[in-house]
């Protein structure tokens, strides 16, 4: 099984490689080749791998996913479909990617401060590949899927903020998949130099009820005093498979905020990591997963406190209905010498049905003595006393369940600081809950 799927990816690479962006840069060709070899050595992970113990990717191995030829899609998506996926006012920069390729006609990038680059990675790879080499070659958190992404990456968001610049409006990178059995390997690179600020929303959605594979990687380089907020909203189709890595490296006193909201796909896996490479870094990792049916959602996070005086706050919540499964593995590593580290990690889960399951594992590895680290995980059902209280006030059972479910999710949603995005998520949540419309009227 693994051999066959491995060979398929390798054969697909031979087919598409000549047309991949940046083919003129020898370092990139070598990088892709190395990444492919790295993938070919192991193939897709199996549940014997510790990091994949609870998540099977057999569904990826079984289907003949192939990269779409460049320029074969894009016209299929209408402006109206884009409009439905935007949120709130249109005061943000919009970059649309259809089946993995930038679609300028559907995008709307506003005015940017001088020196700032915001656009398509493919374009940057063709025009100024050398500027990207140090970032793309940084593979310290490579998973097998990240290696596959490096081999195949064709496009994605590229944001470069020169020192002291900032973008006031959020950047909305919208990845839309439209085709069955297609695979896209979006690669997003965010380079935030000294003292910069930006807020990026990475949003995945699908059309036509297609069954496809997304294998995305996002790299965030936050230099000293940079403040980067990253929101990931995953609303893939119910038949889609979604694998994503978000890897940050933080410089002195930089701040990273990461939010991961996972709603769609039949199989979703997120690896979110950040490394404190200098003193005084801050990271906030928030997440919400809300799944039902036979969905499987997995978050693996890792925060490396490699230097002193770092602060991290991680808060993930999950709601699982039907026969869905959730996996949460949150690792906080305090390296030797990372004194005065302050870390808190929490994961709370609400199981709405007997068949739903969650495996949660918060992990602290501490190799410094002057630290303040706490962690906690809970798994529970709706509270009987709360249910009875609501029903004793005339509220029917279905609505009481919805109210309490909404209340459970709400404190994560409240942490989202982009108001239109927060309101959009509330709407999405209402739409998923029985009688959600009525709860919304009450708000």
């Amino acid at each position: 099984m693994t051999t066959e799927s491995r060979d398929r990816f390798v054969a697909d690479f031979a087919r598409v490689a000549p047309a991949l962006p940046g083919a003129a840069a020898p370092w990139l060709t070598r990088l892709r080749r190395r990444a492919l070899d790295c993938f070919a050595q192991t193939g897709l992970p199996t549940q014997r791998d510790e990091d994949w113990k609870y998540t099977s990717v057999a569904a990826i191995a079984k289907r003949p996913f192939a990269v779409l030829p460049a320029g074969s899609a894009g016209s299929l998506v209408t402006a109206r479909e884009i409009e439905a996926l935007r949120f709130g006012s249109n005061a943000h920069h919009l970059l649309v990617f259809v089946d993995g390729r930038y679609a300028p006609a559907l995008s709307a990038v506003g005015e940017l401060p001088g020196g700032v680059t915001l656009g398509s990675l493919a374009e940057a790879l063709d025009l100024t590949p050398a500027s990207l080499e140090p970032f793309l070659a940084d593979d310290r958190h490579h998973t097998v899927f990240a290696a596959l992404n490096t081999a195949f990456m064709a496009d994605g968001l590229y944001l470069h903020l020169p020192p002291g610049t900032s973008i006031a409006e959020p950047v909305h990178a919208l990845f839309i998949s439209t085709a069955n059995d297609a695979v896209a390997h979006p690669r997003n690179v965010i380079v935030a130099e000294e003292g910069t600020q930006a807020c990026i929303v990475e949003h995945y959605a699908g059309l036509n009820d297609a069954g496809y594979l997304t294998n995305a990687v996002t790299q965030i380089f936050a230099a000293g005093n940079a403040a980067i907020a990253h929101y990931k909203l995953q609303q893939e189709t119910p038949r889609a498979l979604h694998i994503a890595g978000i890897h940050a490296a933080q410089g002195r006193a930089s701040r990273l905020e990461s939010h991961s909201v996972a709603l769609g796909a039949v199989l979703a896996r997120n690896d979110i990591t950040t490394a404190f490479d200098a003193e005084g870094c801050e990271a906030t990792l928030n997440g919400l997963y809300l799944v039902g049916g036979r969905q499987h959602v997995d978050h693996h996070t890792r925060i490396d406190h490699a230097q002193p005086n770092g602060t991290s706050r991680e808060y993930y919540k999950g709601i699982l209905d039907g026969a869905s499964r959730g996996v949460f593995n949150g690792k906080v590593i305090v390296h030797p010498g990372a004194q005065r580290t302050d870390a808190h990690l929490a994961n709370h889960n609400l199981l709405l049905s007997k068949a739903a399951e969650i495996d949660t594992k918060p992990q602290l590895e501490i190799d410094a003595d002057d630290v303040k680290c706490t962690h906690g995980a809970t798994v529970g059902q709706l509270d009987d006393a709360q249910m009875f209280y609501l029903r004793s006030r005339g509220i029917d059972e279905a609505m009481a369940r919805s109210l309490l479910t909404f209340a459970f999710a709400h404190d994560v949603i409240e942490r989202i600081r982009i108001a239109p995005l927060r309101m959009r998520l509330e709407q999405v949540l209402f739409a998923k809950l029985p009688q959600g419309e009525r709860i919304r009227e009450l708000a």
Partner: protein
Amino acid sequence: MLEIRNLQVRVDDKPILRGIDLTVKAGEMHAIMGPNGSGKSTLAQVLAGREAFTVTGGDVRYRGRDLLAMPPEERAREGVFLAFQYPVEIPGVSNVYLLKAALNSIRKHRGLPEVDAMEFLALIREKMKLMEMTDELLFRSVNEGFSGGEKKRNEILQMALLEPALAILDETDSGLDIDALQVVAKGINSLRGAERAMILVTHYQRLLDYVVPDHVHVLSQGRIVKSGGKELALELEARGYGWLEAEAGAAPVETAVR
């Protein structure tokens, strides 16, 4: 309005109510007193529909209907209200949200139009004035971080808003200082009327100084062992519950059930 006949209730196979008979007519105020563990709170919660209790015998008619056959929300919509001894905290659900949802579900059931946000705020603010509550409590999560007194006032506020036909107040006086007790009593008295019946469940006579009952019943070991007028409460205050238990030949008191 309410007719309880030989009601028997168990919790985890342990008998808590062992044959309660009680008739409550519209306009009446009944006080149910008794020592801890006598089954007072169980009776209150069974009437409101708490599913943790198993009814093993007897029946309860409410306005001619089988009360025990109705789910809790239907009882509420039909006019039954329980003021909780321990009001439940619900983080993430704002008080105003709950109050409005409750009011509109009951109004809808009664064939009345639902109130909109403006009408609702005007109505609830009027009731809050009566309960001497500040606006701020409206926008906080239900009972979360409320003081003991605020929680109890919030229960009576809900009662004032929902205007039930049968109100059951479970130890509403417990944990209140004298000022809060008077506010709560004022709220209860303002709701007395010819069409409304109330059952006050209380351990102490204290509340009955402010809310005067028509009938007083003493519950002991799951049975009503004595009934009388308001003077019975005073006698209990003076003599305690021991003499009644001795009179009833009762075994040692069982553990309290929330």
